[in-house]
């Protein structure tokens, strides 16, 4: 199981309480008709492909190396900026918390930023999972 699929599973679990948001468990947020899918399908969480970066944590005289792997995954949610649904704050909190359930990591971080275009607000979440 990849970190992305684990994260999608956990996001689905965390958002099961609400009917205002759904999770697209299959598609990447590709562009369709000039817009990414999360703009075309509002109130749907899309999880992007994971990016992996490897750094050398320890290097030894016999050329043994211990590698630190950082897996970065972005998720997107767009919704109406004029009239947010009532539990948007809980949804955002649960999206952030989804990272905590991923096991086997040395460190996990999650944060988000927002951008408003016309009457649409887009939440962009970034999850970082560090493993050794």
């Amino acid at each position, binding site marked *: 199981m990849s970190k992305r699929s684990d994260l999608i599973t956990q996001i689905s679990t965390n958002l099961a309480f609400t009917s205002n948001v759904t999770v697209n468990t299959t598609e990447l947020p590709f562009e369709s008709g000039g817009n990414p899918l999360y703009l075309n399908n509002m109130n749907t969480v899309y999880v992007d492909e994971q990016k992996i970066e490897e750094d050398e944590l*320890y290097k*030894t*005289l*016999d*050329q*043994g190396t*211990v590698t630190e792997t950082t897996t970065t995954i972005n998720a997107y949610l767009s919704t109406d900026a004029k009239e947010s649904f009532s539990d948007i704050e809980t949804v955002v909190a649960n999206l952030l918390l989804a990272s905590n359930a991923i096991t086997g990591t*040395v*460190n996990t971080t999650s944060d988000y930023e927002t951008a408003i275009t016309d009457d649409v607000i887009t939440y962009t979440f970034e999850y970082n999972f560090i493993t050794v």
Partner: protein
Amino acid sequence: MAVINVTNGTQAILTIGNSEALAVPGVTNGMVVPFVQDITVNATPGTVRYSTLDSTSSSAFTTVNENSVSLNLLVDETVMFGDSANTTNTVALNGLFATSTSKTEVFFSVAITGTGTTGDIYIAGKGFIGGLAPTASIDGAVWLSPCEIIVNGELTKTVES
């Protein structure tokens, strides 16, 4: 003249055995300590300083040499706690930890320029393993430990022929 490059993974190799023959670099059943981050061979003559009324500087004379080998390593389970397959070399069989706690004398060599080639240099001696202090943290991710060999006697330089 040339500096000794240690970046290709074949120099600066510590080999330990329960006999001098089992501590020669590259020997079968010698215990090569893996994952060494840094290693220092200390060959230090002891000195005593004294002052005299007719001199504005102190003088010194040497006493005995105090030699040691110190290193930092990532803990390898087999080397630290024993390799049951190596019954020839009791240091390898018991591991660094048990050898240290039992205060068993070991023989060692530090390959300076590599092994197996005529002209390769190594420093050898015998002594006691000490200074083990395995440390783990979530940030460090693996067990790390310093290690020291307190040399009993003199260090010798050998050139492979």
